[in-house]
């Protein structure tokens, strides 16, 4: 999962201090693993360098923790294309997908589309595997089936999330 894109997404709703960013991240995505401060500052430094964020202002007193960041137009575009790009279907994607959905909801983007395109991506791979299965030997079939069952689980999760999108939106933007 891309912490850079996530932080960028969080900035979309308005400029924030580094400390605020960490808190917002932890609150929504860091349930079992809070983000380290160092990671926030190194990431922000990279984004600054790439021109995706800019420093909006510095609180008096100095020190890196006083910097306030704002997203640039290039940053917004970057977030946009990241959200629209379906992940390569593979097992254990849900943290990334979840983050993407929440960010989409937070930034007022169509989360359903995101889910749908991910779903289409998954199904495409499943079709591929199904085709391979019908041509292969038993070992191939078993291997393909393993992947298929995992992908199916993901796809089901996508379906479920899509069905509960309204509920999630209400919770996220509360």
């Amino acid at each position: 999962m891309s912490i850079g894109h996530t932080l960028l997404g969080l900035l979309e709703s308005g400029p924030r201090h580094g400390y605020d960013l960490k808190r917002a991240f932890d609150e929504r995505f860091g349930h079992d693993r809070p983000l380290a401060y160092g990671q926030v500052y190194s990431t922000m430094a990279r984004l600054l360098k790439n021109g995706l964020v800019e420093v909006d202002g510095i609180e008096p007193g100095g020190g890196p923790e006083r910097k306030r960041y704002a997203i640039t137009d290039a940053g917004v575009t970057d977030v946009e294309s990241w959200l629209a790009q379906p992940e390569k279907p593979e097992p254990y994607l849900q943290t990334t997908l979840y983050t993407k959905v929440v960010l989409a909801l937070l930034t007022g983007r169509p989360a359903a589309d995101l889910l749908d395109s991910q779903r289409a991506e998954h199904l495409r791979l499943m079709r591929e595997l199904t085709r391979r299965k019908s041509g292969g030997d038993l070992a191939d079939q078993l291997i393909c089936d393993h992947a298929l069952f995992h992908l199916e689980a993901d796809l089901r999760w996508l379906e479920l999330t899509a069905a509960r999108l309204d509920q999630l939106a209400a919770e996220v933007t509360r």
Partner: protein
Amino acid sequence: MTAAPEPLLVATDLRKAYGPTPALDGAELTVRAGEVVAVMGPSGSGKSTLLHCLAGIVTPDSGDVRYRGQQMSLMSDGERSALRRTDFGFVFQFGQLVPELTCLENVAMPLRLAGRRRKDAEALAATWLERLEVTDLAGKRPGEVSGGQGQRVAVARALVGAPRVVFADEPTGALDSLNGERVMRLLTDAAHDTGAAVVLVTHEPRVAAYSDREIVVRDGKSRDMERAA
């Protein structure tokens, strides 16, 4: 994906309401010859209703379905029945076989209704039973066979008339994954061989994976997932 041949079935802006609740609310779908289209979506979203509209079993309140350019809503019941006999085949979750007839007679029924002699019809039906690996069920009645076996008989019946479109509504709904996949293999292979298009309503992604294309129906609205990607 296959190169797009001319569409067989085109449904545009279908609306259908049962009482105050809309079952279809502007759904659309195009089926081209020889392709397998999966229709997915939550329960009660209108998948079956869409399928029934496409097959001319249910008449939509508005919008139209064209089969090879002809508007279905303008056809008489007789013409639509004739379509079901000659151009369409059906596989449902269960209950579509006539319990009074043997499996062989069930498979032969569409041919007989289309005017074939009994001998011819049953001979052809027997080859289909063989193809679906259920030859030994020929003399049994649907009540005496398992769900999976019954489903294969239903597939044989759907395909025996060399239809152009097979409508399948949760054909594997009552089967375990192994049997479900077998039925799907047989259905899609046979459809592929005869060049029939398949409209496949399912809840199971692995079943949907046998399709060439996916449509998702939500709240009576359809969404073509190829365009979403």
